[in-house]
């Protein structure tokens, strides 16, 4: 093994002549966090809506929700990324498509939309499961008290379901952070792409990838610790999670 280790590489100047390689990594981390946080907000909003849709009475609305979930779960994320980036602008009217392609941060916006929809399907599954896991009496009791259906969802079912599904939501949040790395294929300079660019310019492969790995692990641990706190705060009294 004659690999030339050089851990000082991160202090050296990157090819742009202004920033060090360490700055390259940090800016990658910032893009990763920005993309996954924005996507996560979108995924939560859409996921709760679609998840609730699947538990409504009647036939067509739940079917619509299930079709939505199947659509986004059965196509690989990479292909979805390409669809949003290369195909979607072509299907719009000419002017709108051109405007989209000329946007300064097109990869970022595309990645957020793509990850938002992709993750929302997964969140929706959890939300449906959460609502179905609640005692059936909750819905009936709320309706008997005179709440209409939207109020039942808004004040009773969804808040309870959120508290039940926090642990699986944590792992979906970790997933969206990891999945944001797929956006490097459409040119987003997130953390993995930054490590890759350091490798390309400096040939210090293993230092660059080790640093990126370490940062991912630290982000992971931080998220897990924060969510544990939140889970303990929000655990439903009387369940095994509460103490």
């Amino acid at each position, binding site marked *: 093994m004659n690999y030339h280790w050089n851990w000082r590489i991160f202090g050296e100047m990157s090819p742009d002549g202004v920033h060090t390689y360490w700055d390259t990594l940090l800016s990658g981390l910032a893009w990763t966090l920005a993309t996954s946080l924005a996507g996560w907000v979108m995924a939560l909003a859409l996921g709760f809506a679609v998840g609730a849709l699947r538990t409504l009475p009647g036939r067509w609305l739940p079917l619509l929700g299930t079709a939505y979930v199947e659509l986004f779960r059965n*196509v690989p994320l990479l292909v979805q990324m390409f669809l949003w980036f290369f195909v979607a602008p072509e299907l719009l009217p000419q002017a709108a498509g051109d405007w989209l392609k000329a946007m300064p941060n097109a990869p970022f916006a595309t990645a957020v939309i793509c990850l938002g929809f992709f993750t929302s399907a997964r969140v929706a599954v959890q939300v449906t499961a959460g609502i179905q896991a609640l005692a059936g009496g909750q819905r009936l009791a709320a309706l008997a008290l005179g709440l209409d259906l939207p109020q039942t969802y808004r004040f009773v079912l969804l808040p309870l379901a959120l508290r039940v599904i926090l642990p699986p939501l944590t792992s979906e949040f970790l997933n969206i952070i990891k999945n944001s790395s797929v956006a490097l294929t459409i040119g987003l300079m997130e953390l993995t792409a930054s490590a890759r660019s350091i490798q390309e310019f400096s040939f210090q492969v293993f230092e660059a990838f080790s640093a990126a790995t370490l940062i991912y692990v630290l982000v992971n641990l931080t998220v897990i610790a924060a969510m544990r706190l939140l889970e303990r705060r929000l655990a439903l009294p009387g369940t095994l999670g509460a103490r």
Partner: protein
Amino acid sequence: MFTHFDFDVIGRSWVYLFQVGMAFTLELTVLAMIGGVALGTLLALCRMSSFKPLALVAAAYVNLIRAVPLVLVIFWFYFLVPYLAAWVIGAAEPVKVGTFWSALITFTLFQAAYYCEIMRGGIQAIPRGQVLAAQALGLNYWQVMGRIVLPQAFRNMLPVLLTQTIVLFQDVSLVYVLSVPDFVGAASKVAQRDGRLVEMYTFVALVYFVLCCLLSWLARRLQKRVAIVR
């Protein structure tokens, strides 16, 4: 809406797409699944070992792999495997391994971490009485695991293992970053050659959608068939 599109490009290239691209994707999926399940089961046994250092190392490996994005792991092994191979056979220079082997090693090692957690769940769901009864009959550790615990764990976890394999089938598309002609890579080559990105990527999405729906329908049917009535 589709007036200025040329869907003829699919008619011209689908043989190449399936014979080269899909064949590569399926081969990688199946081999990585077999390797991943085998290695994952071993990892699960290690994680539950009473020998603490072994359990710790296995847990650290699983948690590390699960914390890192697959794309980064693909890059890691793409550069690491040549050095590892050189070290194994004692060569002075990094060995050229080829993208297929590099990808196969990556997906096997990566998926093993996920299969490990599934198998661990399956093993832990086996009633303790089963193990005690087997030990009382005089079976040793490997007999207890190989003949009593693992067959039941496999059966119970079969639908989940299949679901994870669907995830693997979708994840294989990420070898695109190594410019390998898997199904997506092959389609993207044709798309760029003919300037037909819209048609090709729509077609790719459609094929994946149909195949994955079919596989998850299979998983649901399997779930009904293997469920043990208690």
